[in-house]
């Protein structure tokens, strides 16, 4: 029962709020992939997908909370975002002194998911993120190169002081930037990254509440940078926010021929 003018208004709003130049979604080929978090000790199959080339910035998130005020600090239910949600911003709708072109952090998994939905996207799944992040500028999988590993690890050694760098650094083979060296990133299945075998072992089941020990039961203990991320994500709750935790979004590869996305609405 939407009035045509209402729909037009929605289209205009969508036009105005189209994210800036950074929000390109670039194709990442899938394939069999040896994950640091293997399933049944076997390589996983990752379908080809589209990944946002850059993390979501403060400016982009500011546009989002203006369009969807229910995600503003102070308005969002505590079920969906903890007390430090966007706490570094000057006020609920403005980052203030925080640079517009650096990754937004202090965002919960629920808020990140909602942002991605607003771009017709979703959060990447862990194996998608890990596959994209395995590439360097020349190789699809640079993980066995000790020099590459050492370079990534240096980020973790730096104390987390000062401002985050602007997005757009270190494009890899797929054109994806900032996968290492700036922030941790939410993934859609962050609450699937536990390390235990299965729930038959409940009672002594270890769902990896803390970092460190569980890394030993992972597959690729040389790749400490990736293990840090897994340990970090698996210790989080969906409403948690951190100053070093941001996100980017992903999309499924559209079925061919590409058709306009259906406008999905529930009757209420």
């Amino acid at each position, binding site marked *: 029962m939407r009035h045509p003018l209402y729909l037009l208004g*929605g*289209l205009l*709003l*969508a*036009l105005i*709020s*189209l994210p800036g130049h950074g929000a390109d979604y670039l194709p990442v080929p899938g394939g069999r992939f040896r994950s640091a978090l293997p*399933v*049944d000790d*076997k390589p*996983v*199959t990752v379908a080809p997908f589209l990944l946002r080339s850059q993390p979501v910035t403060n400016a982009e998130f500011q546009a989002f909370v203006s*369009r*969807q005020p*229910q995600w503003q600090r102070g308005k969002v*239910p*505590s*079920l*969906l975002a903890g007390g430090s949600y966007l706490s570094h911003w000057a006020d609920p709708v403005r980052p203030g002194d925080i640079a517009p072109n650096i990754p937004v952090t202090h965002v919960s*998994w*629920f808020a990140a*998911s*909602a942002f991605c*939905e*607003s*771009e*017709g*996207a*979703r959060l990447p799944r862990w194996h998608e993120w890990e596959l994209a992040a395995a590439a360097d500028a020349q190789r699809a999988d640079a993980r066995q190169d000790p020099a590459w590993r050492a370079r990534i690890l240096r980020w973790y050694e730096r104390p987390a002081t000062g401002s985050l760098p602007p997005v757009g650094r270190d494009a890899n083979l797929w054109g994806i930037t900032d996968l290492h060296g700036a922030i941790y990133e939410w993934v*859609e*299945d*962050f*609450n*699937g*990254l*536990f390390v*235990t*075998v*299965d*729930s*038959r072992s*409940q*009672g002594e*089941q270890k*769902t990896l509440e803390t970092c460190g020990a569980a890394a030993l039961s992972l597959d690729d203990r040389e790749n400490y940078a990736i293990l840090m991320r897994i340990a970090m994500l*698996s210790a989080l*709750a*969906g409403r948690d926010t951190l100053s070093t935790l941001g996100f980017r979004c992903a999309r499924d590869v*559209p079925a061919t021929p*590409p*058709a*306009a*996305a*259906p*406008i*999905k*609405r*529930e009757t*209420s």
Partner: protein
Amino acid sequence: MKITRFASLLAGLLVSSQLLAAPTLPTDSLLQLKMPLTSQRNEAVELPALAGKPLLITMFYGNCKTACPVILHSVKATVDALPAAQRERITALLVSLDPEHDTAQSLGHMAHEQGMSAAPWLFAVSDSDTHTRQLAASLGIRYRKLENGEINHSSKLIVTDRQGRIVASSDKLGNKADPAIVAALQAQLK
């Protein structure tokens, strides 16, 4: 290409505005989650409509040979530990982790087999992995799907107050009820 992006953006705007509902619930209530659920009786379940009774919640999946029978036993033992008159005053909600395979019909069949068809038992399945993960994330339940169709998941019982706020949880699942969970439910019935 522009048009496609456009339309999907618009679709996103429309869909995401529906994540939340029922502003009268407390800000930390689970019942605010806007997710379509279908029951074992093939009826739509509106989460806000569950307000008013304490909830006993768990997540499971139908095609599960290992932990899920334990989960069903455990949740049953918990309800059985309540005096008969109190059992009607709670809702025991079991939500599927596997919307790809579980249906209202398969849940109905399972509920019937287990003698869990009628109130307080409410089996439910959502429409997508996305919505299912939102509920799991709210409950602190972790799971991942394996390529063979099995699902690794943490086993947990959760108790909420009458407005859907979590007041207790337990991962001590077995054939006997966890006394702490029974006590938490009874505290909500006073």
